[in-house]
């Protein structure tokens, strides 16, 4: 019995399905065949694109595309349009690892090569698919076009992956019932699992060598067009009132230094999305969201109007350094959490944000009311507007804007002029400080002073910040704190800033003094050239600092008017049902722009510990977080009780965009955009699960004998023997490997119903140990606390033992097997003697996991809504993987 696919998709007159009239078997049959059509029909993964790449003798090029495949596909058909004379061409997919096929071309003409890629698993893969083309010897050719589609499945399995509906179960006179893959139950399962996506809307790959060369480059700040004509783009209509469809896009690119950009725009739907590229090694960007026109089902050709919605792709360097642009993919299927709406946002005070850049506007700051999101739009090349989240803080300056109220005092002939110009906040004027010429030291310089009535945290530096600009031209201004020492004040040398006629926010940090060293005075001094000048000043802030680094970023501005004021901490969380459930298992991608550098993060918590939550997932104790691990900064995916995978060490500057992709099911974590530390972490075998390994007897003459029958018909298993009554073990060793994170261990032991002893397994340098009963397959931890999730499954007369090992194992990790750990399971005894047969053995970095369902998904705070968040900004969308 099977689910048969009808190449002619059924259509039926639903007008004949009437209330109070039985639904005919013909309708059920049509429904079943439609369900099978939707599951069995393959999707286009790469619409024909035009690399038009010239390749010469001996070259190999990889063409990379990103899409989200369908779960039922088992073959991909690649079509490669070659323009060549008589010569050979080699093709494989995926690049590097696919089965190589060689084609012999004749005549100078266009030839379409067909390459079929058989898949090893059926699954939705949100990832790269690729093709490699080689000119093996002699001649050259053009790779003009490439396309790829999933082959149709004429027969579906009756299982939970294919969701085929058994054709016979909907035949006439059959009962209507609820069962997997049959009748109505099967139809509904297939409908809910239907994946009739228009998988890829646009794909382009220029082709590049596998080790990084090739691609389009542009060092200019002026965008270069990828396309001579913007190419039509239309998505699928979901609901009747929809006029747009959501898609996501990624680019495969790098920037030699500095920041380059890739920008996508559309003609009708108004997309204008800029990706900053600040990584120097070829990599796929994080996904970004765009909304394009969708089909109009009532229109003859499906378009929404006379104009096509069309896509343009542009790329630019930074004026000096070139961007290298290799691929761009626009595809569908990812779920998205829009951080600009929904969920529960809390902040018990107002908060400040940028609605534009000082570079383009004389006023650019605004205030969001309590419990209102702050949508920051600094036009600083970080893409579209982003959401700002921060911990709470207090401004200790009682008068932050109007310097003429009397709270501020002019010293050494400095004075204040009111209503000089427009402040960064459009609704408020600014005043200036008029510094006359004169003075020669910080003490004698003209300056403005204000006494702080509350005391910033003692023992750490506090952060001074303010906006300043010249009435015209350029100038200088200095800032420092003075601490009272008895009847006199003293302080560090002031920090000097260069001021232009554009508003800039300046900041420095200074030691506030030990507890009791109060009151403090904040001084804004004339520049150290002591020339006469007028400097406009607005938004002065002194807040509790976090470290002793010389300069650090202030938090967002807190306005005051006659007294100190606080900005409350912010939390943004989504309840179950408000965020995609797939976040917990398949994972998600998020962009985070920390407000502080990695060095500041480390210093804020001077010792091992976590320094801020990027996302809280599920219930308490499940996080994506920054972590100070022995003086190095990591991003960790933590799900109690273990760190599942960690990425780092990382370094980055304040306000540097970090892309983070976490895939629980795969046990991986990827970082993109850090100064150092970019890459994918986890899911890395440091001791490959190879079929041929070497075991070495150790201790007191453990014996390891190779050549034993293995589970796959070979002779690659080992007999390990303990033939004395001491602690005898055998090792399988790696060298030079420092895991740097949690590990997953797996080993196969031959089932032995006659065994009188049990096996012990541990790492060579750690005490935690698992005991395995060779007769029953029972296993349990018999020592230590680092081992968890012990599982044993039986496969063809072998026990497959797997377990997780927390913490960071030492270098040169080795699996240590004690063939006869004891005679009475699970009591350890060195006196026991016996043997076991072992095969394979792997140690894998990163532990696949799933976060618990039923809890909140929180951004920049814990899932419970409490803080210790990571201060900074977040991209608008969290995107499922």
């Amino acid at each position: 019995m099977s689910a048969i696919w009808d190449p002619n998709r059924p259509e039926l007159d639903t007008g004949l399905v009437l209330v109070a009239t039985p639904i005919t078997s013909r309708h059920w049959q049509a429904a079943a065949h439609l369900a099978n059509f939707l599951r069995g029909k393959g999707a286009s993964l790469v619409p024909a694109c035009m690399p038009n790449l010239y390749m010469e003798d001996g070259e190999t090029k990889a063409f990379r595309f990103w899409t989200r495949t369908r779960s039922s596909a088992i073959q991909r058909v690649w079509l490669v349009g070659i323009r060549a004379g008589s010569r050979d061409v080699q093709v494989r997919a995926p690049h590097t690892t696919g089965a190589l096929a060689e084609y012999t071309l004749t005549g100078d003409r266009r030839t379409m090569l067909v390459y079929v890629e058989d898949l090893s698993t059926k699954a939705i893969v949100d990832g790269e698919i690729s093709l490699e083309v080689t000119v093996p010897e002699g001649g050259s050719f053009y790779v003009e076009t490439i396309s790829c589609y999933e082959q149709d499945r004429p027969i579906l399995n009756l299982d939970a992956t294919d969701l085929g509906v058994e054709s016979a179960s909907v035949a006439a006179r059959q009962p209507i019932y609820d069962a997997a893959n049959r009748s109505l139950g099967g139809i509904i399962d297939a409908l809910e699992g239907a994946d009739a996506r228009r998988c890829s809307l646009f794909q382009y790959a220029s082709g590049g060598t596998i080790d990084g060369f090739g691609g389009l480059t542009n060092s200019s700040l002026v965008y270069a067009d990828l396309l001579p004509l913007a190419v039509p783009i239309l998505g699928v209509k979901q609901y009747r009132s929809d006029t747009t469809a959501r898609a996501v896009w990624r680019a495969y690119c790098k920037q030699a230094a500095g920041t380059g950009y890739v920008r996508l725009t559309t003609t009708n739907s108004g997309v204008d999305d800029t990706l900053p590229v600040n990584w120097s090694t070829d990599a796929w960007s994080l996904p970004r969201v765009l909304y394009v026109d969708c089909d109009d089902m009532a229109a003859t050709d499906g378009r929404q109007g006379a104009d096509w919605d069309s896509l343009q792709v542009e790329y630019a360097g930074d004026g000096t350094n070139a961007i290298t642009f290799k691929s761009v993919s626009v595809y569908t299927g990812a779920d998205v959490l829009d951080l600009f709406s929904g969920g529960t946002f809390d902040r018990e005070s107002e908060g400040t944000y940028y609605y534009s850049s000082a570079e383009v506007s004389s006023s650019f700051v605004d205030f969001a009311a309590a419990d209102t999101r702050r949508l920051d739009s600094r036009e600083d090349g970080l893409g579209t507007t982003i959401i700002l989240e921060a911990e709470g803080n207090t401004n200790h300056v009682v008068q932050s804007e109007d310097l003429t109220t009397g709270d501020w005092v002019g010293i050494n002939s400095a004075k204040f002029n009111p209503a000089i110009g427009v402040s960064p906040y459009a609704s408020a004027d600014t005043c200036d400080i008029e510094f006359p010429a004169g003075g020669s030291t910080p003490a004698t310089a003209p300056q403005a002073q204000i006494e702080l009535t509350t005391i910033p945290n003692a023992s750490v530096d506090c952060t001074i910040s303010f906006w300043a600009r010249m009435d015209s031209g350029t100038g200088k201004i200095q800032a420092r704190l003075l601490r009272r020492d008895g009847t006199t004040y003293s302080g560090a040398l002031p920090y000097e800033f260069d001021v232009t006629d554009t508003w800039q926010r300046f900041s420095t940090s200074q030691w506030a003094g030990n507890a009791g060293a109060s009151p403090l005075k904040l001084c804004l001094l004339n520049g150290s050239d002591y020339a006469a000048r007028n400097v406009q000043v607005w938004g002065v802030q002194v807040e509790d600092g976090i470290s002793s680094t010389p300069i650090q970023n202030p938090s967002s501005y807190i306005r005051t008017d006659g007294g100190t004021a606080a900005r409350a901490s912010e939390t943004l969380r989504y309840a179950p049902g408000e965020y995609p459930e797939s976040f917990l298992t398949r994972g998600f991608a998020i962009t985070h722009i920390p407000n502080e550098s990695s060095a500041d993060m480390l210093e804020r918590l001077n010792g091992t510990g976590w320094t801020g939550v990027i996302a809280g997932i599920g219930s308490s104790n499940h996080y994506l977080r920054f972590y100070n691990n022995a003086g190095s900064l990591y991003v960790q995916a933590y799900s109690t009780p273990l760190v599942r995978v960690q990425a780092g060490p990382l370094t980055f500057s304040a306000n540097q965009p970090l892309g983070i992709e976490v895939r629980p099911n795969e046990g991986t974590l990827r970082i993109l955009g850090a100064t150092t530390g970019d890459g994918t972490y986890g899911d890395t075998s440091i001791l490959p699960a190879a079929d041929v390994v070497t075991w070495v007897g150790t201790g007191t003459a453990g014996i390891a004998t190779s050549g034993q029958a293995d589970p796959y018909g070979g002779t690659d298993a080992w007999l390990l023997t303990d033939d004395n009554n001491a602690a005898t073990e055998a090792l399988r060793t790696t060298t030079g490997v420092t895991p740097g994170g949690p590990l997953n261990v797996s080993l196969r032991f031959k089932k032995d119903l006659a065994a009188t002893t049990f096996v012990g397994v541990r790492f060579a340098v750690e005490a935690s140990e698992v005991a395995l009963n060779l007769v029953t397959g029972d296993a349990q931890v018999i020592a230590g606390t680092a081992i968890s999730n012990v599982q044993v499954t039986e496969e063809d007369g072998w026990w497959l033992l797997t377990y997780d090992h927390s913490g960071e194992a030492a270098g040169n990790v080795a699996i240590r097997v004690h063939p006869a750990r004891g005679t009475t399971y699970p009591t350890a005894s060195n006196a026991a003697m016996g043997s076991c047969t072992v095969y394979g053995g792997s140690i894998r970095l990163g532990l696949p996991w799933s976060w618990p369902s039923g809890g909140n998904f929180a951004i920049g705070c814990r899932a419970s809504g409490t803080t210790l968040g990571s201060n900074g900004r977040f991209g608008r969308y969290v995107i499922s993987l």
Partner: protein
Amino acid sequence: MSTSPHEGLIRTGLTVDSGSAIGASIARDYLLNNLLHLADEYAQVRMAMGNTTYLEALETNVFPDRYYLMASSGAFPLPMRANRVPYALRIRIGGACSDAGTVSFRVVLAPPGLAAGYANPEDAAGDPIAPSWDFVWEATATGSTASWLTGATTGPNASANLLTVDAETAAGWMVNTATLTDLAGDTTTAQQCLVAVHVFASTADLARSARLHAAYAAEWIGDA
């Protein structure tokens, strides 16, 4: 055009178990409607290409007025409707001439082995005749600036941007493609209307050539 009664998906909180009765409205407005709409919108994008460079017909200078192949999408299985009419193809072609003159383009939706014949139809005596099918679209380009071309199919529909194939023609194009039943590797065949979008071009002046800068082709449920 839509075959689903609501021209879009319908949400429902329906739960189905052995004890549930499925009424006509749930069957029609949810089950059948959503299946039909998903099948309508299964339509895939088969060509979406452009580049800073362009493709040219290799043999344009051999015989004037003959159409030579510039690009192909590669053969793909066009989805079929219940009446055995394939889904339509929504196309847009961006081209230009190598100089200020005029060149002609023909876009043919057909199996690869037949496309050149449809691009260059002949009468019984072997003389060229005009094509007259709605799966052959033609346009001209004048000047060397890349632009989207305005044209129409050569059949009775004279459609500006929809290539269509009738059931009888499609029946002759059906092939059985070998594929697998599952990962285990057992083989079977899939019945498919395996066609490709081919872009041909021609010039009356041997000194000039046609340039293909961009092309788009996407399936569409059409109005069969």
